[in-house]
């Protein structure tokens, strides 16, 4: 029982990271029906921005996180402007292939300028401390990551539900043409969506840095793919679905390693993707309207 609780704690931290990345996938999909495969790489860039702002400017971890979120927000807007906007009228597959291209571009540009070697995320930025509570070991990193993730998700929910921008985002996602007729600037709304999604990914990147201690230019691939599975599991395009999906995938992974065979962990996660696509392609929170997928 104790071990199970420990595994769930392990899974929650991992899940929080997946959930933050999954949010970006889902928001972008919800609004322009594009699976932005470059999203994992935006997370990687965020981790590097955080790395340099801590190691070069000696900034506090929170400052570094805000800085990385701003930088990646801008990066997201630029990616959308240069790579996706010209293809808005084109087929979906064209945009998808472009997304993969952007992903490779970001990976290898980073490799070119920063070498493929891993870097140690500055340990001094976050003094880790372990607590043993009723036999469970919890570190302040777990708590920090969980609180950060929940706070960011709450802010996101507030933006989407309670602000004018959020209303515009929901409107564009529901029916773009009608939104234009209502006087909503579609371009601006899409840009904001990319900015928000990318900055959440940047926050996740910093968390990966803190949690796993090392960063490298290819670190975005696997978490990016798993977050994508999380987004599909929750119902792609649906914001609460991405959060729940992220946590579920995180917990599932640790349970498979803990009670099954750790080598099947990735296979199980991607197996979930296949099962979901076969059984309920709209995901757990998806309404069964055939138009969506």
């Amino acid at each position, binding site marked *: 029982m104790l*071990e199970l609780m*420990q*595994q769930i704690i*392990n*899974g929650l931290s*991992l899940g929080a990271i997946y959930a933050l990345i999954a949010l970006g996938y889902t928001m972008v999909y919800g609004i322009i029906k594009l699976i932005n495969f470059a999203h994992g790489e935006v997370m990687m860039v965020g981790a590097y921005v955080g790395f340099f702002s801590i190691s070069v400017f000696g900034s506090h971890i929170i400052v570094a996180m805000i800085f990385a979120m701003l930088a990646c927000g801008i990066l997201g807007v630029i990616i959308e402007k240069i790579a996706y906007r010209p293809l808005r009228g084109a087929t979906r597959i064209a945009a998808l292939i472009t997304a993969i291209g952007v992903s490779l571009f970001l990976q290898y540009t980073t490799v070119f300028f920063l*070498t*493929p*070697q*891993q870097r*140690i995320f500055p*340990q001094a930025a976050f003094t*880790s401390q*372990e607590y*043993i509570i009723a036999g469970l*070991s919890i*570190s302040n990193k777990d708590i920090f990551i969980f609180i950060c993730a929940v706070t960011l998700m709450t802010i996101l929910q507030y933006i989407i539900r309670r602000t004018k921008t959020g209303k515009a985002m929901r409107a564009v996602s529901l029916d773009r043409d009608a939104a234009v007729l209502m006087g909503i600037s579609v371009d601006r709304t899409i840009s904001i969506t990319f900015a928000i999604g990318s900055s959440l990914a940047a926050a996740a990147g910093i968390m*990966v840095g803190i949690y*796993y*201690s*090392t960063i490298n230019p*290819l*670190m975005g691939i*696997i978490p990016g793919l798993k977050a994508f599975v999380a987004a599909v599991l929750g119902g792609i395009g649906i914001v609460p679905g991405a959060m729940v999906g992220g946590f579920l995938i995180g917990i599932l*992974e*640790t*349970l*498979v*390693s*803990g*009670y099954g*065979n*750790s*080598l099947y*962990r*990735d296979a199980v996660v991607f197996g979930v993707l296949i099962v979901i696509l076969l059984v309920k392609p709209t995901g757990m929170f998806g309404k069964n309207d055939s138009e969506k997928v």
Partner: protein
Amino acid sequence: MRISKKVSLVVLMMFMLSILAIGCGDTSSTGDGEKDKAGVSDKADVIKVGINAELTGAVASYGTNARDGALLAIEHINAEGGVLGQELKAIVRDCKSIPDEAMSVSASLADEGIVAQIGPLTSGNVAGSTPMVMENQIPLIAPAATADDITLERDGSAKDFIFRVCYSDSFQGKIMADFAADNLGVKNVAIYKDASSDYAQGLADYFTETFTAKGGKIIIEEGFVKGDRDFRGTLTKIRGADPDFIYIPGYYEEVAPLIKQARELGIKAPLGGPDGWDSPDLVGVVGADNLNETYFTNHYSIEDENPKVIDFVERYREKYNKDPDAFAALGYDAVLLLARGIEDAGEVDPVKIQQALEKVTNFEGVTGTMDIDKQHNPVKGVVIIESIDGKQTMNTRIQP
């Protein structure tokens, strides 16, 4: 105009003929002989040594350090008058930690006329490079490739042109099992291995074989794959089994976060590993406190009191302003072994050097005194490194 053109044509033809004559190698004529001699002697004075190393990519820290060690050895040899009166010249190429790349690097080095190749570092990359050096009949001295089969053909005989200066995995796994059973006195052991690498798989097998033969028990065996960063799930499971010791064969990129997470989960058992742990990143990621009570088998220790080691460490520090790790020492030894081979051969010919290398005995390197056996492996001791407050210290040296 026409005449001058004709004259220049004649001159050109004469020039081409003279080049042909030089090509035949028998030029005792004066005049252009001067120029020619300079050209030939330039070639003969230098022995080209190819260094094919992982300067970028996953195991870049191995490759760069081994290269530094090799270059230091070359500098040292040249300062003492070279080999057979000729200077060694290094041609350094990056194989990017990719086996295919290691092969094409070997091809281009062969084109440049090297007499022997030092590197690559990992077994996989050496295996990539092997067909090319075998085809060109150039001896390859692997500084740190520990897989048993890299020097062996399928039938168990040695691959003619492949040598190494490090011990093999079977030996390394056995020594760690001996150390765990005899020196640490542990009984119940967990193995958490990099299941995606032959290296770690081999080590785990050899460890298990020796350890169970000594009456110990492997109570749990788990695996991770290259690129994994989250080990908490499996570690929690291992914690539940409560082992006295955990053997973690793998490379530092995964092992470093793994050890960190193990300690964070409150696993206090001593941990052991192979030479793949040897990187400054290990203490950088894990932290000095958490790395206490970890042991790994290695090729040499910076603390060794052997005068050869002390001299090497001093010169390395002076040149590079950092401490040499085992890869630097092995790179250094690989060049020294090559120099010994060339000297024993008595002439700069790759095939002769190969024959001489096969017969090397009592070669004194920084990583120990060794004989080259029939399978082209060195017979030498193993050092057990213990980390104490972030410092690598030599726990013991085990002779075969």
